[in-house]
């Protein structure tokens, strides 16, 4: 039972990461109807930028951990958002009216480009980060299996929950959020009503990339290692989470992320670590076959 609770904690941590990345997929998909395959690489770049900033902070003699951490988050989020925006300008905007698969290929090209660029610039080896926040909460310390939740895990979940709540409010209340929702429903009509389509799409990319960067920095704190290839699997998992929850739906991305995280934690704890991906993809297929639009997705109306 205690083991189960421990796995629950791990699963929720993992799920929060997936949820943060999945937001980027779900927002872009909702508006443009394309899978942004390079989003996983944006997350990877966020992780790199976080570690580099922490290193720089150490070089310039900033020894206070909270300050370094704050700086890392700030720099990573801002610069990665700029990456996302630039990527949209270069690779996706010229393809607005192209056939449906062209942006997908462009995205796969961007993804390959980022992977190889980071590999060339930063090397193929893992980049390690000294543990900035060692330790954690220990519950039931005197039992046989104490439940450990590291500070980083706690921060990760807290940040995710806060950000998700903020995002929900942002999309519901602000003008930009309203524009995004309008674009999701009908691009032409939104443009007629005065929504700047290109600008809003750019903002969507900025938002998604910033959240992915947040996930990247927090993950590198959690695992202490970053590699140029981490984006691929994380991206696929996050996209899976977005589809599970119902793509285009923000709460769905959150739910799908946590769901997927729990599945992975449980299968690797009770069944097999190697086969955890088989289970998550298998469950994805099952969910989609039973409910083809995901858990929270609206049923797709076919207008003739």
């Amino acid at each position, binding site marked *: 039972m205690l083991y189960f609770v421990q796995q629950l904690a791990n699963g929720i941590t993992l799920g929060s990461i997936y949820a943060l990345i999945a937001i980027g997929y779900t927002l872009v998909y909702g508006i443009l109807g394309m*899978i942004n395959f390079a989003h996983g690489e944006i997350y990877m770049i966020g992780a790199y930028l976080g570690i580099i900033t922490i290193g720089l902070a*150490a070089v310039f003699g900033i020894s206070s951990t909270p300050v370094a951490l704050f700086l890392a988050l700030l720099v990573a989020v801002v610069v990665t958002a700029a990456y996302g925006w630039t990527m949209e300008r270069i690779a996706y905007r010229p393809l607005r009216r192209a056939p449906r698969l062209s942006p997908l290929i462009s995205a*796969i090209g961007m993804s*390959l480009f980022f992977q190889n660029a980071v590999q060339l610039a930063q090397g193929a080896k893992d980049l390690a980060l000294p543990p900035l926040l060692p330790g954690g909460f220990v519950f039931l310390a005197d039992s046989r299996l104490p439940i450990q939740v590291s500070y980083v895990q706690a921060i990760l979940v807290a940040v995710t929950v806060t950000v998700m709540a903020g995002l929900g409010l942002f999309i519901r209340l602000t003008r930009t959020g309203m524009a995004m929702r309008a674009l999701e429903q009908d691009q032409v009509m939104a443009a007629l009503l005065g929504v700047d389509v290109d600008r809003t799409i750019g903002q969507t990319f900025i938002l998604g990339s910033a959240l992915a960067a947040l996930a990247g920095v927090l993950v590198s704190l959690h695992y202490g290692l970053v590699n140029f290839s981490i984006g691929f699997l994380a991206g696929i998992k996050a996209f899976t989470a977005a589809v599970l929850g119902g793509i285009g739906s923000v709460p769905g991305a959150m739910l799908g992320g946590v769901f997927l995280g729990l599945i992975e934690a449980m299968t690797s704890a009770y069944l097999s670590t190697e086969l955890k991906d088989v289970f998550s993809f*298998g469950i994805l*297929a099952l969910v989609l076959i039973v409910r083809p639009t995901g858990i929270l997705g609206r049923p797709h109306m*076919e207008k003739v």
Partner: protein
Amino acid sequence: MAGRPSRCRALATALRDALWLGLLASPLVAFDLVPGYERQPRLHWQLDDLGIIVAGVFLARLAVLVAGCHHLGLRLSQLTSHGRQRLARAWQQGRRWPALTLTVLFGLAAAFPFAPFVSRTAIDVATLAGIYVVLGLGLNIVVGLAGLLDLGYVAFYAVGAYGYGLLYQYCDWSFWMALPVCGLAAGLAGLVLGFPVLRLKGDYLAIVTLGFGEIIRIVLNNWDSLTNGPNGIMGIPRPSLFGLEMSRVARDGGHTFHQFFGLDYDAGHRLIFLYLLVLGLMAGTMLVVERLKESRLGRAWVAMREDEIACAAMGIDTTLTKLAAFGLGAAWAGLAGAVYAARQGFVNPESFTFIESATILAIVVLGGMGSTAGVTCAALAVVIIPELVRELAGFRMLIFAAVMVGLMIVKPEGLLPARRRIYDLHPDDRRSLEQDRQSLAEVHRQ
């Protein structure tokens, strides 16, 4: 001069873009953090790399801007339009006698390995390119014709490759016995995957097929007792020619090719044989795909791609049509997989990652969906170009990726987009149609 302000603006734009990209690249490129003996790392500047990037982007952007406007642009477009006219004329001529053109092309391709300047590596690369042509044409059935986005196509390729590997290892089957079985097995796998995902549309289908591809790879990687895990299967024999083996020494009871024909042993024979085999497979695939395209099934695929509901309303069984696309597409991947296993002599799960699926999909889209000629050209380009720039090592994939994005921006339809087949009208009908169109245009003008 009229050109001056725009040239100034081009310069400013190029400078702005170069500086912006340089700024973005700087945290990753401009310095290295050398881990110090203490906890504190040291900073090591690498500004020359950054300078190269900024200068490169500036020049490239300037070239694009200048080519896009005025003088040079005009001249360039004249040049290309002249070239294009010539090409188009050649194309028309080629289309008039397609059988002749294809025979000449395939004759040249078959003569290629015997030409004096061709190295062994070149033949080997050409063989690989041929395998990718078959893969591209197979995926073209699923994605290009039927419009079903499949991101896990590599799974069927793996089924074919492992099919031959396992049949050899456990049953000692030869290549020629295993080849049809591999095709059938992969086709069956396509049907098995097709059944549950029939209800899924568009990108949901994409992600499930992607998941399926990953599942196959992970299972191959972890089922140690059957597939030997990450190490894969070694020592897979090369194909034989009517029982004559293409090796230095024959296995017990066999004859070798060079002994039978009284030649000296040459490893090149084997490569050439494999190349010709792939060429044959390629020709067969093209023939079948082209015939399929014109068939009732092929037209049903295109109809389904364009509008599934309308297609169903016309009385086409979309379930069967979809399953046929999955099964047939997968079968070609299975055949290609068996040939791949025979070429490599070993298979391991590393060869069947998502990148492989993405490359094959890129071949289909870069070439132009549904276009046999386009897919063939794209497959050749995607395999051969990275081989040509092998010296660039790490930058190879970077350039490949950039070209992929650039090509999509310049030609989103692909290199040689498929033409809709126009079913021939009688000359009279055509003339009256033309007249109708002209009078319509006049009405519009007024």
